[in-house]
């Protein structure tokens, strides 16, 4: 311990290097603000190197945490047992309701020829590490790019969404938790009684156990117990992932998360990719001009289908008067451009 028994060395002449190093540290902070992934490669290399060690200490650490975490539960086992039996009976009733509703929804989807939800590939992973630091709450999974895990993908357990993949190394990946300061998730809030319309919001982590709900207008009134699920906006996360329930009052709405990252052991990484909307099949009768009641420009349509001109024939001159198709609405041009049949002539795009 530092006390007056230590012989203090002479004052170093390091004032100039100290100023330089201090300036470098400030530059590093500013650089880190603009390039947040400055250390990502090094982080993943170190985590990949540590993975075998983390795997080996995982079991004893889990046992220790389970043992220490269950000490206080010894005194409430009887009450918990009664509460769980009661909850189990109610959940069985809800399960029957859910089965009936699922069959009804499937029937309606068949009637409406609804587009089925896209398939989601999942990667099973184990939690091999956790870190709860003042400004970052993460967990480390034993799956990385070698298992097709990519940054941005959602991580869920059996109860709900936990977070998103933040960094992906070869064999490990970091998960940024929903409660983390860096977490922003577009969510949909459905009224618990099903009477009010669903609302959109952004769920923002602030390193507390319950993230905040942002971008709600002041006039919106939520009620405790309203369900929060992922909205799927942006196409990165699948819609409808259960996240939590609303708590708090006006101006300070927060979300109680369903999943508990501190106790999750096995999780799934959802490789969701929103499929691109398929273009409608191209046919003359479906051209916007025809749909608008205008005569089709048959010459323009037939031109691309004609056999290629002989080599001696000149290329299409800029001044060649091509037949112009009337455009009754401004947004039709975009539809026409995507059609393989009626590509607009070069130089005429600004009409």
């Amino acid at each position, binding site marked *: 311990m530092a006390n007056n028994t230590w012989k203090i060395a002479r004052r170093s002449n390091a004032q100039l290097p100290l100023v330089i190093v201090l300036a470098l540290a400030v530059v*590093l902070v500013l650089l*880190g603000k603009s390039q947040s992934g400055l250390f990502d490669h090094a982080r993943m290399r170190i985590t990949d190197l540590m993975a075998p060690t983390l795997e080996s200490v995982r079991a004893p650490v889990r046992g220790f945490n389970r043992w220490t975490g269950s000490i206080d539960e010894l005194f409430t086992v009887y009450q918990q047992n009664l509460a769980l039996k009661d909850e189990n009976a109610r959940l069985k009733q809800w399960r029957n309701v859910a089965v009936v509703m699922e069959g009804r929804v499937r029937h309606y989807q068949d009637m409406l020829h609804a587009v089925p939800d896209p398939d989601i590939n999942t990667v099973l992973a184990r939690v091999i590490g956790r870190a709860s630091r003042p400004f970052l709450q993460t967990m480390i999974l034993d799956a990385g790019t070698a298992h097709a895990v990519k940054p941005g993908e959602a991580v869920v357990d059996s109860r709900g969404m936990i977070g998103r993949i933040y960094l992906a190394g070869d064999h490990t990946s970091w998960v940024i938790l929903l409660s983390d300061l860096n977490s922003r998730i577009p969510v949909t809030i459905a009224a618990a009684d099903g009477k009010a319309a669903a609302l959109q919001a952004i769920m923002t982590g602030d390193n507390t156990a319950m993230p905040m709900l942002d971008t709600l207008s002041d006039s919106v009134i939520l009620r405790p117990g309203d369900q929060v699920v992922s909205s799927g906006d942006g196409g990165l996360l699948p819609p409808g992932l259960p996240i939590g329930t609303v708590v708090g009052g006006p101006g300070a709405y927060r979300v109680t998360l369903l999943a508990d990252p501190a106790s999750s052991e096995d999780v799934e990484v959802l490789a969701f990719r929103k499929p691109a909307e398929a273009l409608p099949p191209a046919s003359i009768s479906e051209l916007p001009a025809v749909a608008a009641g205008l005569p089709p420009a048959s010459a323009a349509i037939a031109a691309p289908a004609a056999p290629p001109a002989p080599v001696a024939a000149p290329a299409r001159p800029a001044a060649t008067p091509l037949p112009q198709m009337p455009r009754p609405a401004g947004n039709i041009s975009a539809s026409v451009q995507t059609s393989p049949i009626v590509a607009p002539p070069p130089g005429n795009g600004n009409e």
Partner: protein
Amino acid sequence: MGARLASALLPVLCGLLGVLLSNLPITLFGSLVPPPLLGFIPIYFWCLVRPDLMTPAAAFAIGILQDVMAGGSPGIWTLSFVLSYAVIQRQRDAFAGLAGLAAVLGFATATLIVCATAYFTTAALYWHLPPVGPIVGELAITVLFYIPGAFVIGALHRRLVGPLRSDF
């Protein structure tokens, strides 16, 4: 020559080892106990005792490793460590003259500078005040770990670096 090199590298190696140990992604007691800033204990200790072995560049390197291992926005811990190093160095006579509980309070003051710098830098970067609880917990647990940590480092210093103090 070998002993001199080992004594010269010992403070930095202790700092780097402290960072590695404190940033292992293993949480005990269900995330209730935050990890201590073990990498800062050697910085404080050797900045007082042998600043020629714990240079600003060494503090910078330890801070960089803390940033890499801890995640989050780069540079926050580097700036915090270097800024605290600057304060310790300017007030070295006052800090080094402390003994017993006062020495622990001196370390707590230096750690408070580290934590406050990290907290307000993060708040400025995110334009949002993070909760105070976790950083206060980190401060408390780091000060708690200083007592055994300083004994270990002191023993290492006496055994490996101490004999060379007469050179200065």
